[in-house]
């Protein structure tokens, strides 16, 4: 059990075991372990599935059953940037449908396909809990708020050209594999980048401040140091 039996390197095997050891019961580590596999392999590979199975002492079929259940796990190689356009109702109505159509044309791909240069994988996604910033696009699961077809195309052209692109509510975009590593529970030390909140998140608070409205807490009455 302690030595690599396939193509994954020693470091990855060690990290898979490290994830499993975080939990009271090792199998709880499976979701983050599959995120780690994606960060190393660029997708969920048969080798990655076998490694998870071996570390957890379960069958590859069981791991496979889990990997196929969750939409963030990919069987086909994902590009450097995963671009998700929200086409759930609110965003779709606010323009998400048009943005998605425009990007398909621009990249000459269908849903869940990767551009020929291997850079961009395009997918339409469900509500990403940012409806107050509709229409929303996610790049490697970072928020790109209040998009238009033009702004979306621009962001994607910049990414393909290697120009730095920033999330509207977060840091400069990293690669999809780097993002998957953070989701596996290995922080990249970039929590301090980006704003506290976007403008829509502050809409009500601003009105409360303008009107002097508070909830009457000690701190709002200035009683807390």
């Amino acid at each position, binding site marked *: 059990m302690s030595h690599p039996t396939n193509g994954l390197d020693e470091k990855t095997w060690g990290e898979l075991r490290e994830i499993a050891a975080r939990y009271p019961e090792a199998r709880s580590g499976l979701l983050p372990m599959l995120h780690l596999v994606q960060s190393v392999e660029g997708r969920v590979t048969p080798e990655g599935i076998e490694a998870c199975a071996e570390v957890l002492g379960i069958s590859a079929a069981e791991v496979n059953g889990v990997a196929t259940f969750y939409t963030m796990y990919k069987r086909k190689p994902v590009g450097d940037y995963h671009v998700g356009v929200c086409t759930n109702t609110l965003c779709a*109505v606010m*323009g998400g449908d048009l943005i998605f159509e425009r990007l398909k044309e621009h990249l000459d791909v269908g849903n869940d396909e990767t551009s020929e240069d291997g850079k961009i994988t395009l997918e339409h996604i469900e509500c990403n809990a940012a*409806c*107050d910033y509709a229409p929303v696009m996610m790049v490697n699961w970072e928020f790109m708020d209040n998009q238009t077809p033009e702004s979306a195309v621009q962001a994607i052209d910049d990414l393909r050209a290697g120009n730095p692109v920033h999330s509207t509510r977060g840091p400069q975009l990293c690669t999809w594999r780097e993002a998957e590593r*953070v989701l596996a529970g290995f922080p990249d030390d970039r929590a301090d980048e980006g704003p506290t909140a976007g403008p*829509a*998140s502050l*809409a009500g608070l601003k009105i409360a401040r303008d009107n002097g409205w*508070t909830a*009457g807490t000690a701190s709002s009455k200035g009683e807390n140091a």
Partner: protein
Amino acid sequence: MTDTLTPVLTDNWDAERAWTMAAYEERGGYAALDKAFAMGPDAVITAVKDSGLRGRGGAGFPTGMKWGFIPQDNPRPKYLVVNADESEPGTCKDIPLMMATPHTLVEGVIVSSYAIRANTAFIYVRGEVLHVVRRLQRAVQEAYLAGHLGKNIHGSGYDLDLIVHAGAGAYICGEETALLEGLEGRRGQPRLRPPFPAVAGLYASPTVINNVESIASVPAILTEGAAWFASMGTEKSQGHGIFSLSGHITRPGQYEAPLGITLRQLIDLAGGMREGHELKFWTPGGSSTPLLTPEHLDVPLDFESVGAAGSMLGTRALQLFDETTCVVRAVLRWTEFYKHESCGKCTPCREGTWWLTQTLARLEKGQGTEEDLDLLLDQCDNILGRSFCALGDGATSPISSSIQHFRDEYLAHLTHGGCPFDPAASTAFVPAGADA
């Protein structure tokens, strides 16, 4: 008199680097810990009961009562699991909360875990929000370094470990028992209840599952008092809640107010519907709550009143659509969502959501007949109340409510031979002055 808006959870979102421990402590953060340790766990549960806090994840179950169900004579470990899966369409409050002030949640986790005597807690956060995961990871790391987590917290003798766990994309994992399956490394399919999680939850041990906003509300209840919390809101829906306005409104965003505020008040605060347009339909609490119309603008947004109006308060996810929006298109898209997210465990939902999309898609293209509306209602009947979990029930809400309020619009698709609306007119980037 309570103010119209009552920022508590949102109150430090405009602070410089609010997500850091330094900023949080400057505002008196983590003061609830020593208070809780001095009170003892049972008194903390009593305070939360007295506050009237009801679950903010949709169902509105009294939080203190849920904690009281944990059998303390059970020798197995107890667990607290925070539901940070936020995926109900329209719902967008927990994500900005965790991005701006993850420490409010972490402080709530510590106090709540102490109350139910858990020594391990989890935050199950949906995977599709990278920067939120980063901020949570950092906050937890900072809390360990400051001695708010780990062994013998503040010298109290109480130990707690907190694990941030990123999901992998599945709406159903917001359902609490499916979430536990996901957290145990399995396919996220709901479990049969009973046993309820309070008795046999994570690893078959007593487990409390609460929404992010519920847990984040706990520290202020301790520091300001249960009576302070209960003084806000309505008789049976007490306290403050974040109302999320999205869609065709001038200033979409988060508005924290006492429960019982009306949509009319909120729209006024938000600068009205977008210029030159009027409200056509809205969801009070996400896509699983039946649609309401302008007729319901003065319904107090509390659990009882929205229920009496034929819908549900849900997550206070107010999605507003103006007259440029085709209700059939909106409903079809939500139905496709439920079909996509159905976990496949039970037949009424797995097969039913497939049939619903077939029938709706036909109608939307103007190819059906009027009988298809009855067929749809029939199909809804076969799902509602017969599904294994509330996802199936939720899938029927937009359909039955839209047929109730907008039957003519369905028929217009038939007479028009397709959708009579121009989808460009409803976008956020429609050129000013342009019209359908």
